[in-house]
């Protein structure tokens, strides 16, 4: 694995008594990385530190060879880092093309480069003829894409995206996710993506870091973290499952029926053979509509890492609405 994009050593940041970042080491690999954590876990503080806007109480960090915690690199690090803020932010009274070209010029591009680059980047985020209109007429989706465009203006090697899909409607969210996925996977840009919507992170990131109360509590490749543990098959059946269950038990496969007619077949060895299940279903004259291996989702990983119990005891899909033991009684 090539050298890490961001390496942090013993990072501590205190706001008075509150220890926003509680001394941790972190090596962020290249490519798209998700940064997860409940509200107030230190994500925004970390981003500001990487941008050199905040000085840490202790520890230092190196980003792409620059060290934003030192005075001299504090500004120059921002020439190679692009930041997409979370809230609404716009330069007053400007249209999209003016905003992106002005910000590009401020970063250091020459005038003619800034204008051509602005058009290129706005084409990329599909802000076509709206780029000449003032921004207050934009929809939330267009504003988010504009923010992404201004972060890309100086072609940074590292992109810091803070909640890019927050508050977007499904169409806007899909467009934004396509852009982030294309940047991360196809264009090979390093991305640090902060988000609460774990489906989005699962879809766009390869590596994940989970922060909680200022410390790194979990990190690893997404595929590894959500790998299937043990051979548990989830099968949804139409019609009467009873005969099918008898068949399965006859074949020595222990089966439990979940709440909404979902069967959980425990496979003796690690490699489940679905064809066998289909054969049994055919003999039982039963129709299978869903069959998948039990994999914990990123949400379960997150909930386990942050210490809140996953709902309904077993590591089921987040959308399992049959949660018999509700969270209400338990302390968060």
């Amino acid at each position, binding site marked *: 694995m090539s050298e890490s994009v961001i390496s942090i050593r013993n990072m501590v940041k205190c706001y008075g008594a509150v220890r926003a970042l509680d001394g941790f080491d972190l090596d962020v690999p290249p490519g798209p990385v998700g940064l997860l954590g409940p509200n107030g876990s230190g994500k925004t503080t970390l981003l500001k530190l990487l941008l050199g806007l905040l000085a840490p109480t202790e520890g230092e960090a190196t980003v792409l060879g620059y060290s934003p915690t030192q005075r001299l690199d504090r500004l120059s690090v921002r020439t190679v880092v692009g930041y997409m803020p979370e809230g609404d932010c716009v330069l007053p009274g400007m249209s999209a093309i003016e905003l992106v070209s*002005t910000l590009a010029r*401020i970063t250091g591009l020459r005038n003619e480069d800034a204008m051509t680059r602005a058009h290129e980047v706005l084409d990329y985020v599909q802000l076509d003829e709206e780029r000449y209109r003032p921004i207050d007429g934009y929809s939330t989706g267009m504003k988010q894409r504009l923010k992404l465009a201004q972060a890309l203006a100086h072609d940074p090697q590292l992109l810091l995206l803070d909640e890019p899909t927050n508050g977007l409607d499904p169409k806007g969210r899909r467009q934004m996710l396509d852009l982030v996925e294309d940047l991360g996977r*196809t264009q090979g840009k390093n991305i640090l993506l902060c988000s609460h919507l774990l489906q989005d992170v699962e879809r766009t990131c390869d590596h994940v870091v989970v922060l909680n109360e200022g410390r790194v509590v979990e990190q690893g490749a997404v595929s590894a973290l959500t790998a299937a543990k043990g051979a548990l098959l989830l099968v949804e059946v139409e019609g009467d499952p009873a005969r099918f269950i008898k068949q399965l038990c006859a074949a020595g496969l222990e089966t439990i029926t979940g709440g909404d007619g979902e069967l959980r077949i425990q496979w003796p060895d690690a490699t489940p053979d679905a064809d066998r299940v289909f054969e049994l279903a055919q003999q039982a004259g039963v129709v299978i509509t869903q069959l998948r291996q039990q994999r914990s989702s990123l949400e379960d990983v997150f909930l386990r890492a942050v210490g809140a119990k996953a709902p309904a005891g077993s590591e089921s899909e987040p959308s399992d609405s049959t949660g018999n033991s509700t969270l209400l009684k338990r302390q968060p």
Partner: protein
Amino acid sequence: MRASTHTEIYRPFTGSLREHPHRWLTIGASSVRQGFKRKLPALLLFTPVAIGCVIACFRVYFRFQLLSGELVNINSPGAAGITMMVTETLGDVVANIITYTQSMAFFSLMIVAWYGAGLIAEDRRLGANLLYFSRPISRLDYLLGKGSGTFAFGFLALTLPCLLVCSVAAFTSPEWSFLIEEWPSILKVILFSGIWVSTITLLVLTISSLVGRKSHALIGIIGTIVLSGGVSAVLSHLLRENAFSLLNLFENFERLGEWMFDRWDSDREVTIGQTLAALGGFWAICLLTLAARVRKLEVVA
């Protein structure tokens, strides 16, 4: 539902960044361009300045024409009387320029206030500070940029018309006599208007950094001017103590103008030292507040 590959091709940027890109110049230029986008306020604010400047130029022009005598043929009866009366009303050229500068001070304040009030306030309200400070600019760049933007408007409103009047005076004066004899006072006029513009720029930006919206900033500026004038008047009246007139910005500049163009009438109770100290104090307060507010603006980013 996996995402289909993205058809848009992302082209990496091949150009290079400039070594010392004068970032504050870009910010200043963009604020000026933003200002002149809306034509109506520009028209409304700059017409009185233009009219004042034209009048001053004509006064100076006639003044010199009369001196050279082309305007009124000498041998007609009573010509001497008319020329004497007219020259007497027109007054000395330099005095003309100084009165022009002081009369335009108020208009230039309005122009600088209108264009400068929103520069920092609207940035904070709309979150533009997040965008500015995620770029490699220091707080000084930001301040210099906003300051230069506002100063440019003040320059257009006051210093440029003064220069125009001086140049008209120089051209019409016989054999450039105005330029040769009076060039120090031209420099003084430029310096005086420069100081006035930079002071009101500082005032406008400080108030703009304290409030959340352009309209509040405008109210704040007008409020400060009126209040400082009113309070100093009431206090000096009530307490018969003229030191309070130091609070009033306009009076300070009147005294400064008189001192610079050595028309200082000696029986003024407030000395020039106190005036300069008052101005220095005002500048210090403004710069300190601005520094503190912009530091807060950056961290909020």
